[in-house]
C-alpha cells in the first residue's frame, strides 16, 4: 500500500478504536477529562484564579500527551490481549500506518476535551491569528508522546506494565515539566533538564502566542520550535527503527 492508502488505513484504525468505542461507552470521556480538569480546578482555586490561563495551557498539553503516552498501555493491550497487532502485521498495513492509527484513536478520544479547552484559550486571550501556532505545537506534543508510547509498548511483556509505563510517561511528559506552572520558577539546572522535554517548549510557545513572552535563558520561540522538531524527529526515527513490529 502506498502512503495515501496507509494514511487512509490509519484514519480507519483510529476511527475503529475510538469513535466506535466512544459512541457506545461514554465512561471513556469521564476518564480523559478527569485528570486535566482536576488539575485546572486545583490550580485555579489555590491561586485565586491568577493561574487560570496556565492551568488551561497545562490541561491542553496534558490531554494530548496523555492520549499519546497512554498508547504504551493501549498498544500493549492490542498486541497481547486482542492480538490486533498480529492481525495487522500480517496485512498490507505497515507499522507507521498502525502507529498513526492508534495515535489518531488517541486524538479522537481527546477531541471532546479539545473542543472545550481550545475555545477557552481563545476566550482568555489567545488571538485567533495565533491559533495555528498553538495547534502545531499541540500536534508536535501529540506525535512525540504517541511515538514513545508505542515504542515502549512493543517492548512490554505484560499488560499491567503497559498501563504503568503509560502513566509514568504521562507524568514525565505532561505533569512534571513546566506546563501547569511558570518555567521561570525552576532552578537553572532543572530548567535545562526541562528543555529536553517538548511539552516545555509547547507550553512556552503557547504562552508566547498569548502575549506572555517567557523570559528564560537560552530560550526563544525559534529555539522552542527547533527543539520540538528535533525531539519529534528523534522519537519517530527511533520508533520506526527500534519498535518491534515483527517479533525477533
Amino acid at each position, binding site marked *: *500500500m502506498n502512503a495515501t*492508502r496507509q494514511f*487512509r*488505513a490509519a484514519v*480507519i*484504525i483510529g*476511527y*475503529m*478504536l475510538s469513535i*466506535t*468505542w466512544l*459512541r*457506545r*461507552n461514554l465512561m471513556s470521556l469521564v476518564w480523559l477529562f478527569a485528570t486535566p480538569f482536576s488539575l485546572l480546578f486545583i490550580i485555579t482555586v489555590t491561586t485565586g484564579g491568577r493561574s487560570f490561563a496556565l492551568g488551561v495551557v497545562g490541561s491542553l498539553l496534558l490531554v494530548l500527551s496523555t492520549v499519546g503516552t497512554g498508547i504504551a498501555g493501549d498498544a500493549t493491550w492490542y498486541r497481547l*490481549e*486482542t*492480538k*490486533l497487532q*498480529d*492481525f*495487522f*502485521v*500480517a*496485512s*498490507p*498495513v*505497515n507499522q507507521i500506518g498502525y502507529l498513526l*492509527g492508534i495515535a489518531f484513536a488517541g486524538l479522537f478520544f481527546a477531541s471532546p476535551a479539545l473542543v472545550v479547552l481550545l475555545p477557552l484559550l481563545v476566550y482568555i486571550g489567545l488571538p485567533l491569528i495565533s491559533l495555528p501556532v498553538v495547534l502545531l505545537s499541540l500536534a508536535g506534543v501529540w506525535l512525540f508522546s504517541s511515538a514513545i508510547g508505542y515504542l515502549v509498548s512493543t517492548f512490554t511483556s505484560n499488560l499491567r506494565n503497559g498501563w504503568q509505563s503509560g502513566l509514568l510517561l504521562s507524568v514525565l511528559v505532561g505533569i512534571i515539566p513546566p506546563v501547569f506552572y511558570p518555567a521561570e520558577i525552576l532552578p537553572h539546572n532543572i530548567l535545562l533538564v526541562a528543555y529536553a522535554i517538548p511539552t516545555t517548549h509547547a507550553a512556552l510557545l503557547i504562552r508566547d502566542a498569548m502575549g506572555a513572552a517567557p523570559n528564560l535563558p537560552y530560550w526563544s520561540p525559534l529555539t522552542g520550535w527547533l527543539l520540538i522538531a528535533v525531539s519529534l524527529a528523534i522519537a519517530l526515527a527511533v520508533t520506526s527503527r527500534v519498535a518491534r513490529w*515483527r*517479533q*525477533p
Partner: protein
Amino acid sequence: MTLNSIEAVSLSKIYHRSRTQALSDITLSIGRGEIFTLLGRNGAGKTTFLRIAATQLMPTKGKISVLGHDARDEPLEIRRKIAVVPQEGGTIGPLTPWDHIYLTLLARGLSRGEARGRAEKTIEQLELTEYRNQPADSLSGGLRQRVRVAMAVATDADLIFLDEPTLGLDAVSRRRIWGVLNEIQKEGRSLLLTTHYIDEAEILSNEVAVIDRGRKVLSGSPTELLRNVKERVRVDIVGSTFSSEELNSYGRVVKLAERFRVLTDDQRGRELADEAMKRGSDVGLARVSLEDLFVDLVGREEE
C-alpha cells in the same frame, strides 16, 4: 511462479529470552489451494511455525518462502496477500461484529462497496446475522471467536493462517467454520491451520504435519498417515472381565481411564468384540483413526 504456497527448509527457531528451541530443522511444503494442518500438542511449535510464515516472527535459521517470496527479506510482498487469525485473541469491547469485519477490511485497502459485500457474506456464512449489531463484549466466547475468524476469512487474501481457529467452540460452531474454510478452499485459496483437535485435522485437511517438541514427526494426507498404523481396527471395552493376558493376546492394549482399547487386525477385532458382548461388556468397534496414530507418535515417550 512456485507451485507451493509455503516452502520451509531446515527452519529453526530459538527464543533467546527463554532459551527455548521452539522449532528444529523443519522442512515442509504446502501446496497452493490446500488446507494444510499442523497437528501437535500444546507447546509443540505449531504457532511458532505459523507466526514465522505469517511474517510475525523472525526465524533463527533456515529458509522459508511464502507465496514465492522470502519471508525473512520480503515480508511486505507477502503481507499484501495473507490474513491471519491469531491464537486466543479477543474482540474489542463495544465494537460490533460488523465493525470488526467491515472496518478491518477497509483498513486493508478494500473499497467501501467491496468491504460491505464481503462483510455481509461472511456474517451470513458464519451465522452472525442475528448478532451483527451487538457489542462484542455482550457476546459469548464462541461468538467472539467466530467474529475473529470472520475478520480473516472475509479478506481477499490468497493464503489464510488460522491458529487454533475452533478452540473452545461447540461442535455446531466448529462444523460451521469447517464449512466456511472448505468454501474458501474451493475458491482456490490456501489455508494453514494449527490445531490439537485430531478430528478437525482428519476431516478438513488435504495434508497434515504432526509436530512434536519443535520437530516434524510425520506428514502426508490423513489417509497416508494412517498407513503408519500397523493395526486396522480398535476395540473399546468398558467394564472388562478380561485379564491383561487375554487382552494382550488380541493385540496392542491401551488403558484409557475406565476402558481398555485394543488395537488389532479386522478378524481378531471382530472376535474380541463378539467375546466381550457375550461377557456382557460395553463394546465399540471402529477403524483406527488419526488419534491413535497421534497418541502413538507423540504420547509414547510420555507413557
